[in-house]
């Protein structure tokens, strides 16, 4: 029987080793597997290389992992945000390395790792400091740089629902990096709001087929969806949000 369910976050994360390369889903707070990250802090692995679009917001989630001194290196596209004070401090103190990658190249390198493509030519960044030192080549009259697949030991991602095969669906723009990260890690661990019966997810609408997921753990509906403290910079018309909200009415 195929059963990828784990009862607790602790159980789902128990084998993560020091020095692991970990893909962490999310774009800001949307899709960030906060409960898994909290579990990782408790688990204790250190000297980690973490791949995420950003480098943590506020004091929770990825920022808390950074604050706990567990991250040796961040690979990301956009570490500098109004509320990325934890990373900012560590970076300026020389306590964390940074590999800056254009966002689409980051996504494509992760996708390539999952697809068995070790390297590809990419037009992004040509003529900029981020192409310096990279092998380049003119194809069809245009210069491209050679980019390499970005594989990992673990992926920690957040979905909306899963079944025991590991099939996943996501919610709105919280999908972001989850599906590609799931393909690119040796072991993919997904937290979901809900685990449903096998067959309950529409086969036409499953975003991540179960083969890409190794462990799923139900964390319940994430309270911060409703608690009005939208860590991660969610704003309305650029103004920070300060009041409780509901999620159903948005469309």
């Amino acid at each position, binding site marked *: 029987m195929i059963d990828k369910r784990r009862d607790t976050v602790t159980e789902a994360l128990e084998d993560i080793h020091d020095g692991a390369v970990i893909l962490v889903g999310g774009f800001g707070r949307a899709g960030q597997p906060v409960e898994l990250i909290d579990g990782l802090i408790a688990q204790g692995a250190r000297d980690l290389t973490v791949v995420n679009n950003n480098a943590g917001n506020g004091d929770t989630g990825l920022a808390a992992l950074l604050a706990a001194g567990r991250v040796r290196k961040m690979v990301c596209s*956009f570490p500098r945000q109004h509320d990325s004070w934890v990373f900012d401090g560590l970076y300026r103190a020389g306590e964390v390395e940074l590999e800056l990658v254009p966002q689409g190249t980051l996504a494509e390198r992760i*996708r390539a790792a999952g697809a068995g493509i070790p390297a590809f030519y990419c037009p992004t960044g040509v*003529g*900029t400091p981020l192409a310096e030192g990279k092998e380049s080549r003119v194809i069809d009259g245009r210069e491209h740089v050679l980019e390499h697949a970005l594989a990992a030991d673990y992926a920690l991602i957040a979905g909306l629902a899963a079944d025991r095969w590991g099939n996943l669906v996501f919610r709105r723009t919280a*999908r972001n990096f989850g599906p590609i990260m799931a393909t690119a890690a040796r072991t993919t661990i997904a937290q979901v709001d809900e685990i449903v019966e096998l067959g309950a997810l529409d086969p036409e609408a499953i975003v991540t087929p179960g083969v890409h997921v190794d462990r799923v753990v139900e964390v319940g509906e994430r309270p911060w*969806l409703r608690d009005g403290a939208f860590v991660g910079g969610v704003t*309305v018309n650029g103004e920070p*949000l300060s009041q409780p909200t509901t999620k159903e009415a948005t*469309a």
Partner: protein
Amino acid sequence: MTTPQRPTGLSRAEVAAKVAAAIPDGACVNLGIGAPTAVADHLPDGVEIMLHTENGMLGMGAAPAPEHVDPDLINAGKQAVTAVLGASYFHHADSFAMMRGGHVDLCVLGAYQVSQRGDLANWSTGAPGAIPAVGGAMDLATGAREVVVMTDLLTRDGTPKLVQDCTYPLTGVACVTRVFTDHGAFTITDGRFALDEIYGDADVRWLRATLDLDLVDARQEDQT
């Protein structure tokens, strides 16, 4: 030669309206974070465009009322947005394939500098100690079919952002085709800025005196 007094220009919202008016009906458009986001609020009635946001949605709508905010529904600037009828969600590799593959008709980006050959610098001033962050700017500059810049013509201290050669680290090479500023709109053609429109109190003499450029006056050419 003395530089004349700085004339009055358009407000950010007014520039956003100029950009919005230049977007063709039916286009797929990506609005960069910051000032370009406001372009969405100024689209003319009757125009329908597909707004793309890099974090995986086509068919982005306006900001929600505060009680309808959904933290799982945000734009590239991590602001709360809505989805319009016809919207779809997709993952990040598909989202950037959309840009890199030339499926986004037009993007609107802010700038630190734009050079007369269309080079864009908008992600780093190269200041020592600054934390670099690029996000999706290079992908947009490289992949969108047309890259439009929306920016103030001058920095706060009066330094022109339209330059012969960018001195800041580049975002993309020879990618910008049009620039909308508070004092005028420009097209980049054959390695030169062509002035399409003047806004506010500025005149060509002031622009020529202020910008260290071989500026073409495309308004006159249109009139001949």
